[in-house]
């Protein structure tokens, strides 16, 4: 596979949003869906926020991602609202756990996936510079941003390899899980990281001169529209407080 699913490609990516809009959206979902801020008055708006990752993924031509997200989310939501009240005892507890947690975490995960998979590292850096953050925070954050897909990829490969040797939950060698997974993961990541930092240094990262960036970022009509969507929950929240 030439390209990981989480890595951003510049060609053929449909509607382009400013990374700041995506960040605001992610924060909104973290706050209102994951954190349930605002309580009862915001609750009716939560489904709209949950639908946003799917809409955004569709706009970015990520058909598969959008379909998977919608399917899993709807399933867990239906379980949560329809099936859970019918059950009792331990089944209820487990079902409630799975569906309640899924429907709470999925939107955030999907939005994070969308953010990482549609933003290139250069764009991300450009936005952070535009926000006047210190380089000491920007460089680690953008490296981290670039590195998440790599870590997941490596972890998945190591997972597969260790499964073959019977080192998994419920397998023969559960006790070795920690050591046999962490150590290879770290070794891989350190090696990749060294190469990455060599590559970045040759491109002048960490030099004395001010870096330039050719990414065109800026707000367009779609960004303003999304900002309005993001602001509605806040407005409702404050209205609920005042009235």
């Amino acid at each position, binding site marked *: 596979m030439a390209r990981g699913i989480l890595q951003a490609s510049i060609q053929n990516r449909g509607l382009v949003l400013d990374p700041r809009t995506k960040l605001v959206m992610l924060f909104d979902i973290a706050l209102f869906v*994951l954190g349930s801020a605002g309580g009862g008055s915001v609750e009716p708006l939560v489904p709209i926020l949950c639908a946003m990752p799917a809409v955004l993924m569709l706009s970015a031509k990520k058909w598969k991602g959008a379909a998977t997200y919608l399917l899993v989310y709807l399933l867990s939501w239906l379980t949560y609202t329809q099936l859970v009240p019918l059950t009792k005892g331990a089944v209820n507890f487990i079902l409630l756990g799975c569906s309640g947690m899924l429907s709470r975490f999925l939107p*955030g995960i999907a939005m994070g996936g969308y953010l990482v998979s549609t933003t290139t590292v250069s764009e991300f850096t450009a936005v952070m510079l535009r926000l006047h953050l210190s380089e000491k*925070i920007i460089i680690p954050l953008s490296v*981290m941003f670039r590195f998440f897909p790599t870590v997941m990829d490596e972890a998945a490969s190591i997972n597969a390899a260790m499964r073959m040797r019977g080192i998994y939950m419920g397998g023969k060698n559960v006790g070795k899980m920690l050591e046999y997974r*962490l*150590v290879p993961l770290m070794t891989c990541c350190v090696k990749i990281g060294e190469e990455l930092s060599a590559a970045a240094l040759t491109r002048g990262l960490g030099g004395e001169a001010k870096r330039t960036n050719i990414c065109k970022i800026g707000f367009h009509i779609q960004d303003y529209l999304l900002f309005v969507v993001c602001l509605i929950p806040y407005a409702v929240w404050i209205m609920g407080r005042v009235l």
Partner: protein
Amino acid sequence: MKNNQKLKGKDLINIGIYAAIYCVLMTCISMLGYIPIMMPMLTVIVPIILGVPMMLFYTKVKKFGMITIMATIVGIYLCVTGMGFWPILFGVVFGFLADLIAKSGSYASGKKSILSYGTFCVLLFGNYLPLYIDREGYFSTRQSFGAEYINTLGNIMQPWTAPVLIIAAFVCGMLGALLGKALLKKHFVKAGIV
């Protein structure tokens, strides 16, 4: 190495790499938090397991500020994943303290780095703070997990557990550091990574 105390690109890239590893592992482990009894146990498990990557990170730390930035980034990550604003504040404060401790051992002393990582782990308590200062508010946002979950969690998280959690995070951080050191010796030194 030149005796230059300014943070260079390479140091910052290192922070990013280790922060990514840290955050991915932390997220995987924290999924256990749904089981009520595991919720306070996270302050035990997370520091111990993450001691391994952090001890490797400590071998790369040679300058003041790296641990502070690391802790701040972990705090920002926790905030974005829905833990509120406290983790950022805790990250800055305890990252800075951890940095001071490691600096007093000039970033080479084994004992100081163990102590420093213990301090670093206290930042995890930032996640729990809303549970103690705004109990009603916190549980009202967790209604979707069901009454059973709330009751169990409420019984576990009595106010007196707050100092226990802090101490647990600190002690387990040190245990995790010891584990990390042992693994480091066993694998990474041999492989020439450290």
